[in-house]
């Protein structure tokens, strides 16, 4: 029987292995096999978030940046300063719905300087 581990523990193990230089494909194959055996494939997206979380705790951060317009170099360097990670990777996304400003999503945390968020907050206050 395979021991049922919490996602947090699986994620920590996977992150350790990836950072120690093991092939990413091999690690992910092991994780996939574990999810299949324990019938937890539904949790795959959450597990990806958990692995990103575990990597972030070890200084490797993938940040999703959403903005209405393409990012300038100045903003990118500001974002690096804000996140303050050793290894930072930016995934950029253009979304006109945010209206203006920028939103930075790092695992478990968010900086929201978009107009959309400010409008929502204003609406909630008025209610």
């Amino acid at each position, binding site marked *: 029987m395979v021991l049922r581990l919490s*996602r947090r523990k699986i994620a920590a193990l996977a992150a350790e292995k990836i950072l120690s230089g093991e092939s990413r494909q091999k690690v992910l194959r092991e994780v996939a096999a574990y999810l299949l055996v324990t019938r937890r494939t539904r949790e795959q997206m*959450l597990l990806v978030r*958990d692995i990103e979380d575990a990597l972030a705790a070890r200084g490797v951060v993938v940040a999703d940046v959403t903005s209405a317009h393409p990012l300038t170099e100045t903003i990118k360097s500001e974002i690096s300063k804000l996140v303050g990670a050793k290894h930072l990777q930016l995934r950029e996304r253009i979304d006109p719905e945010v209206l203006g400003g920028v939103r930075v999503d790092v695992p*478990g945390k*968010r*900086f929201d300087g978009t107009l959309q968020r400010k409008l*929502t907050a204003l*609406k*909630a206050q008025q*209610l």
Partner: protein
Amino acid sequence: MADIKVTELAEELRAAIAGLETSEGLNSVGIVTRIGDGVAWVHGLRDAGFSEMLEIETKEGIVEAFALNLMEDEIGAVLLGSDTNVSAGNTVRLKGTLLEVPVGPELLGRIVDPLGRPLDGAGPIKAKQTGLVEREAIGVLGRRHVHEPLMTGIMAIDAMFPVGRGQRELIIGDRQTGKTAIAIDTMINQARQKTGVVNVYVAIGQKLSKIARLVERLKQEGVMEQTIIVATGPSDAASMLYLAPYAATAMGEYFRDNKQHALMIYDDLTKHAVAYRQMSLLLRRPPGREAFPGDVFYLHSRLLERSAKLTDKLGGGSLTALPIIETQAGDISAYIPTNVISITDGQIFMETDLFYQGIRPAISAGLSVSRVGGDAQTKAVKSVGSHLKLGLSQFRELASFAQFGSDLDAETKAQIDRGQRLTELLKQPQYQPMSVWEQVASIYAVNNGLFDDVSVAKIKDAQAALLTRLWTDHKEAMRTLNKGDKPTDDLLEVIKKTAKTVAKGFEG
């Protein structure tokens, strides 16, 4: 040593906090993974605290929730409102606060929901303060023993099971036996006797029509100005029913902590336990007896422990609680009734049989008890009603023999005769609480055999005549008696003489 200016320190700290609050940085966020039945499961937010407020961003605006299950991989949060707008993938943020409600005198005369939002259409509530919904009960050193009376105006209670300020007295009984009626009469009595006690009535999952009727009555009786009503109906979310008594207690505690007296009425805690059971089962907590979760005792004990009589050092305020429990077919040994009986300082047990025999309020003399109210009983009532409970309990035991009237020995027959008169005397119509002097005069007359020659059917008429006569002829003496001190022999003599005269008119 340099001169330390504490005021400047405080200002700097305040400025630093304000700076931190406004600075936009990386905030913890999570996402909703599952949602249903008013419960949202959240991934992330590992730094969330127990019972901390969460904000779920939906397309329609922000929905609030509070974290109740903190597990390794996810958080179970209960929504404060409808879950129709929340969907999987919504962002969740920490609000950084615990649940608070507005408190203060601004709430008097208002009907609010468990979050302190007005339900009466009388405009916004401009309270200056807020109180924590979940607050720790006051400690041992802050408490004083219960010693001041809280008159209910119901003769059977004030004479046999007195309630003191700071006491928790349970009202328990089957449906339709007059439990709420006792609570309402007590509220009315506070206004009639001008005791200054603030009433906080909590309707937990009560029919809205019943609440509307109650409000109407309280307005008619002029009680609403010193009353706060926290209302939840059967269609409200279980989380609102769960929060209602805690939020209302926070409102009552304001008065307790400000040298005033408040009376909490929880109507009823059975429905509260059921709402908590629903939440717990949806949060997948293991069910125990009757499917209630393991901490259902703590649910009520931590609520009722907040009722207290404070020491003079803390202002001497008090918070009295009258929780209500509904039983099924008179079974007081069910799970929730036994729990609340053991938490409270006594119970008033309402019997269906008595109710249908026309003995109203249908208080059972044998099963009811007040564990701490003795010291708090008004001296005047105590001096005349000391053997009332025993006499009445013995009578109820013997009542079944009453039909063999002629075959009984003289002593038993006398006991039955007295018991029948006492039972008749203690009947009291709703919305007519009695003042101290009325109670003393009535009990004295029957307990001392002054009405022994009056037929049982005419006892209430004789009582009414006695009270009218006493009030017209001896107004000042009755006012003195109403202060609650032990009556002097002269005063008792006045009652005795008047009762004898009145009794003559009702003989036979």
